[in-house]
């Protein structure tokens, strides 16, 4: 029976592994190779220059360092804000309502809310970007938020949120959270549904309020889901390129105030003709993403609870 087992298994694996090697591993390996050269991207000649690109990368006050800072900020703020809001909404929609005759339910109209919150998820990111660009526009040009702020007598940035260095990054993160929260609401809702109701009922009998129910029961039992969400959101945070490209002035402005790592790679590769330098940034990003995944999986581990 054992005879011929390996050729059989290999014949199944050959195609996917081959495709993976060709389309994923090979380009990565090539990025490493290119990052050690001075290749411009539009020629077939180049010289190996060692690690110069990596050294220069951390001296680039113009693009790379601001981009690393901004991506770092997004990496912290986006998961925290999205998970906090997602958990809060999911808890309110599933368990947050008044308990009627001992039954635990969500707030009124929770089904309707779930659908509404999920809407942004079905919009393509290009539409989201164009939509929000208009929402953030200057008041003179039909900006929704600036217009509303002025209407109720509050100050608002005269050139809109995206042209203002102080607000542009926050504005981009706001859109990211807005478009992600619906998905995590549904994600956490389904996780909450698997927590047995009797635990909550026992807690209520013991006199626990909603606060205690959330922090003592829901959150600990959802830890695995939170961890998964964290990793997903971190990956999203490392690539905010599309929104920055679509919404912000000069794709990362004003004056680099919203530059992110993905956008800087694109700028160097295609606008500056410095493919090798762009590859070096890509390699750095690759290792950052890798260590992030390892760290969050290692340190996020907790005991599994079986119900």
């Amino acid at each position: 029976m054992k005879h011929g087992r390996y050729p059989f298994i290999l014949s199944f694996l050959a195609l996917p592994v081959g495709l993976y090697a060709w389309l994923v591993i090979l380009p990565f390996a090539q990025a490493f190779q290119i990052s050690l050269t001075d290749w411009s991207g539009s020629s077939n000649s180049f010289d190996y220059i060692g690690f110069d690109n990596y050294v220069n990368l951390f001296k680039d006050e113009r693009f790379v360092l601001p981009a690393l800072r901004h991506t770092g900020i997004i990496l912290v703020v986006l998961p925290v804000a999205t998970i906090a809001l997602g958990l809060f909404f999911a808890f309110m929609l599933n368990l947050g309502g008044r308990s009627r005759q001992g039954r635990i339910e969500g707030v009124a109209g929770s089904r309707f809310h779930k659908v509404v919150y999920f809407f942004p998820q079905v919009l393509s990111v290009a539409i989201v970007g164009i939509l929000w660009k208009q929402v953030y526009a200057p008041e003179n040009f039909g900006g929704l938020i600036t217009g509303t702020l002025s209407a109720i007598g509050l100050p608002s940035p005269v050139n809109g949120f995206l042209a203002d260095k102080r607000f542009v990054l926050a504005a981009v993160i706001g859109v990211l959270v807005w478009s992600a929260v619906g998905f995590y609401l549904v994600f956490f809702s389904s996780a909450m549904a698997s927590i047995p109701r009797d635990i909550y009922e026992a807690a209520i009998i013991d006199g626990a309020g909603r606060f205690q129910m959330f922090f003592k029961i829901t959150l600990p039992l959802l830890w695995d889901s939170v961890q998964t969400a964290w990793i997903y959101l971190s990956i999203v945070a490392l690539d905010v390129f599309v929104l920055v490209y679509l919404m912000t002035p000069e794709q990362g402005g004003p004056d680099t105030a919203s530059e992110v790592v993905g956008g800087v790679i694109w700028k160097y590769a295609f606008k500056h003709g410095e493919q090798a330098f762009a590859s070096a940034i890509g390699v750095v990003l690759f290792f950052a993403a890798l260590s992030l995944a390892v760290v969050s999986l290692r340190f996020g581990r907790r005991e599994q609870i079986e119900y």
Partner: protein
Amino acid sequence: MRTTRPIFNRRNLLGATAAGLAASSLGACATSGSDDDAEEVTVGDDAENPFGVDPAAPLDVVIFDGGFGNEYAVAHQAIYNEAFPDAEITHLATQAIAETQQPRFAEGKPADVLDNSGAQQIPMDSLVSDGELAELTPLLDAPSYDDPSVTVRDTLRDGVLTSGTFNGEVYALNYVFSAWTVWYDAKLFRDQGWTPPTTWEEMLALCPVIKEAGIAPWTYAGQHPVYLYDLLLILAGRHGGVEVIKAIDELEPDAWRNESVVKAAEALAALYTEGYILEGTPGIDHIQSQTAFNERKAAFIPCGSWLPNEQASIAPADFEYMPMGVPPFEGSVQPGLISAGGDEPFVVPKNATNLAGAYEYLRIMLSKEGAQIFGDTVQAATIVKGVELDNPAAKATDALVSNPDDLFQPQFRFWYTKMNEEVRPALGSLLSGESTAAEFIDRMQTVADETAADDTIEKFHHED
């Protein structure tokens, strides 16, 4: 019992993969195209076919499908096919120039003729320094399509080759003739009884009057401050003479600190501080600013000479686009100076398969018929002399660029990507009140000095 020996154990599987990867990444990767010695094109005696085109050789043309569309190119190709009926022409019209064409350069199999324009342009400085482009002197020295006794060079307007010239060698044929001007609506000015200002001081005096009519004096594409580049430099150049802005291109020490440049920067900053710019302008893009202008919310807008064509179907029917030069300061040394010349660079890659055909195609584009086709389809002038255009805005622009000594295109942002990346946000901050003129000058002088000191950046110079 028979022991089975696995074909691959963990160790040799990894080894095999690594070896395979190493081999293929060295062999089959994007950076391994062949670099054959490219042939050269010479000018022969046959005026009909000076470059010795192989009539059966296919021709590969890539056109930037932007504001000018690609209809004109199809018509040019028809002329080529009249002369060489057997040549099969591949025509690609796209906006994604870098995405589609950069890999072809890297592979060593570029197109024959490439219209390297638009936001996705492959940076010219890197193409030139990498030696990827063919020099166009044979084309310019060849007999023109219409008259064998006149060379192609002599059929062109003055100064139009400058923007495609890198250290004295012509690498790009900038086909469209355009000028950077300030636009106003002649009807609005007539109705309100305003006289178009001839000096910066007159303009400043008119601004309060414009504001009283409920109109903002100025607007511009705030999200793309590069629209202010020529405004600033020409204002400075008019005041102190063209040498002032040439010095900036040449990265001369303290070129930015010249009093004319400082004066121009201060004047632009003052437009903001005086409240002469449409509120919200720094937050809008070129489309929004042009729409505001069409809606007569602003009186002046700085833009290129393509604007009226682009807006023809959008602007109100009674809107009369009129250009003027940047209003010069009183006492300006060279008040007629204007940024005008070739735009829309057509290049011929050095490794083009049909090099002779590419030169011949460009020669057809520069024929009277070829240029008139362009003028008729897009209502814009080409760099060929004597193309008839029948719209008033084009005629008025022609009058502004009539003196060849006054034509100059500031080049540093095309020569040095690093300075391009600095001047845009710096202009943005200057006109939105975020930085003062002094800060602007310091910032630009710093990047100019850094560029001058950096040996890894290839330096370019004006011819004279």
